[in-house]
């Protein structure tokens, strides 16, 4: 029987009998399957080319993956990232709250901090801190505009590690300030008002009511920032920061196995960012309290779903 929808009259489809058990079939996405097949073939070709390429030197990759010098670099990268993230988060919190303060001076200072450290390249900042001695040969603590105080040669104080922490941390701080500010702004003003009406002080409202709720908004971009920092920390190789990339470069400068060593570094960066991704999931779940069922899907289920992408085309969510 032909459907004549356009005419809209006559030709009415008879209503089904209650005895008929009508089955529904979801739309099949055949072009998707074809596209997936093409991608798989290309991928397989790439993998086989890489696996059989003699210049890849897989034995070298395996050898250096766990060599002490590389592991030392991995450790430094982790330490550097964690320290910079702590510094950056602290600065971000302080400058975000300053930015939202009633005090115009604090607001202005915060604005300029973000403007400067977000507006200049991290690499430039890193090199600047590393070469601070060119500007100030000696640094120390003293009374401004007098000679009273104690000091030391700058180069003995600002080590490559300290320069790295300052350069990256101050930069992350600027981004975190904006992330935290966005989180605070996302919370309904009624929350602060209700808390104020109960007699809570500004500090207490921020700590007990606003920030815990803002965390849900702050965390995803913060995880992003952390992962970005893990990789951005490779820039300290420029100032011999001793991180994973510095060590990698040191090794291939000696044995010229550039590609295998870059693969080693990439594998480690992937491992670190993967761990960070898992960590982020658990922290987000903690701060999702009270946020009914959206978080209900477990990490395991999420992973299984991502590992079996063809499942999605079956149309079950």
């Amino acid at each position: 029987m032909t459907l004549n929808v356009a005419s809209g009259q006559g030709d009415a489809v008879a209503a089904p009998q209650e005895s008929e058990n009508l089955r529904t079939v979801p739309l099949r996405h055949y072009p998707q399957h074809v596209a997936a097949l093409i991608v798989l073939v290309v991928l397989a070709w790439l993998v086989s080319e890489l696996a059989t390429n003699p210049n890849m030197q897989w034995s070298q990759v395996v050898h250096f993956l766990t060599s002490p010098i590389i592991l030392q670099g991995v450790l430094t990268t982790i330490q550097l990232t964690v320290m910079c993230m702590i510094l950056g988060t602290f600065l971000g919190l302080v400058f975000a709250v300053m930015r939202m303060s009633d005090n115009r001076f604090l607001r202005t200072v915060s604005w300029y901090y973000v403007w400067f450290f977000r507006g200049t390249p991290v690499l430039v900042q890193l090199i600047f801190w590393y070469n601070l001695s060119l500007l100030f040969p000696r640094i120390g603590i003293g009374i401004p505009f007098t000679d009273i105080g104690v000091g030391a040669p700058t180069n003995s104080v600002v080590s490559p590690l300290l320069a790295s922490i300052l350069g990256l941390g101050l930069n992350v701080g600027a981004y975190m300030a904006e992330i935290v500010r966005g989180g605070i702004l996302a919370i309904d003003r009624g929350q602060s008002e209700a808390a104020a009406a109960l007699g809570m002080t500004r500090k207490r409202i921020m700590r007990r009511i606003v920030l815990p709720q803002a965390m849900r908004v702050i965390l995803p971009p913060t995880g992003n920032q952390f992962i970005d920092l893990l990789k951005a920390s490779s820039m300290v190789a420029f100032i011999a920061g001793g991180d994973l990339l510095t060590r990698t470069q040191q090794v291939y400068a000696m044995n010229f196995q550039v590609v295998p060593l870059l693969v080693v570094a990439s594998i480690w960066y992937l491992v670190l960012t993967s761990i960070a991704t898992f960590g982020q999931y658990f922290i987000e779940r903690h701060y999702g309290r009270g946020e009914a069922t959206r978080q209900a899907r477990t990490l395991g289920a999420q992973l299984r779903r991502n590992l079996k992408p063809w499942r999605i085309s079956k149309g079950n969510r």
Partner: protein
Amino acid sequence: MTTSTSSRERVAEGADRPAVEIVNVRKSFGDVEVIKGLSLRVARGEVLCIIGPSGSGKSSLLRCVNHLEKIDFGAILLDGSYVGYRRVGETLHEMRLSAIAAQRAQVGMVFQRFHLFPHMTALENIIEAPVGVRKESKAEATARARALLDRVGLADREGAYPGQLSGGQQQRVAIARALAMQPKVLLFDEPTSALDPELVGEVLTVMRSLAEEGQTMIVVTHEIGFAREVADRVVFMDDGQVVEEGLASEVLESPREQRTREFLGKVL
């Protein structure tokens, strides 16, 4: 300008100092004056309902009573002390934030859209201020919070997050949260306006029982039936001023002013 006249039969003797006294208050938002020289008195134990069209300044007035909005002129007194200000001669100087916070702790407020803290359970919502602000012990505050939850009919929902409660239940938790601070006066800002019609009753029932227990309350509401039944006095506000005030029966049954009659004709 109308001032409070007679009709304080409920607290005829004993407490002669009003719970709240609003004296010639003016308030503007930018160029728009929303409260235009308004005076009101609320006696201890009294239930005052404020009715009036939207934009008449009722909510702003209520928010001035706990200094959520700053007044531009005049004064508001809570149990004899200036709200938000310190008087030096003829001038009122705004108090420090911590002093204002301490004053707000004596005034409970229930909002149109509840504003429960969504990351805390019902019980945690109620004990937050007693423990954090009043420095009560957690055990003591919890015991009292449970009693309050029982009183608003939610004894079995103490572990529920606001997102798991209906609007009516959330508003009852919000009332319990305000009561936990043992406020001298309880302010209600259109407490049933955001509720589905079938949930309004449960909230009004709780408010009615509070009124019967002698809680001082200022209620901005559109529930004329509730005002008629529970209020000691009703104030009709329009355009930032008190148009008419008196016993609930007088204002609602036989209003003197034309504007009151027009308004009641529309809402009833």
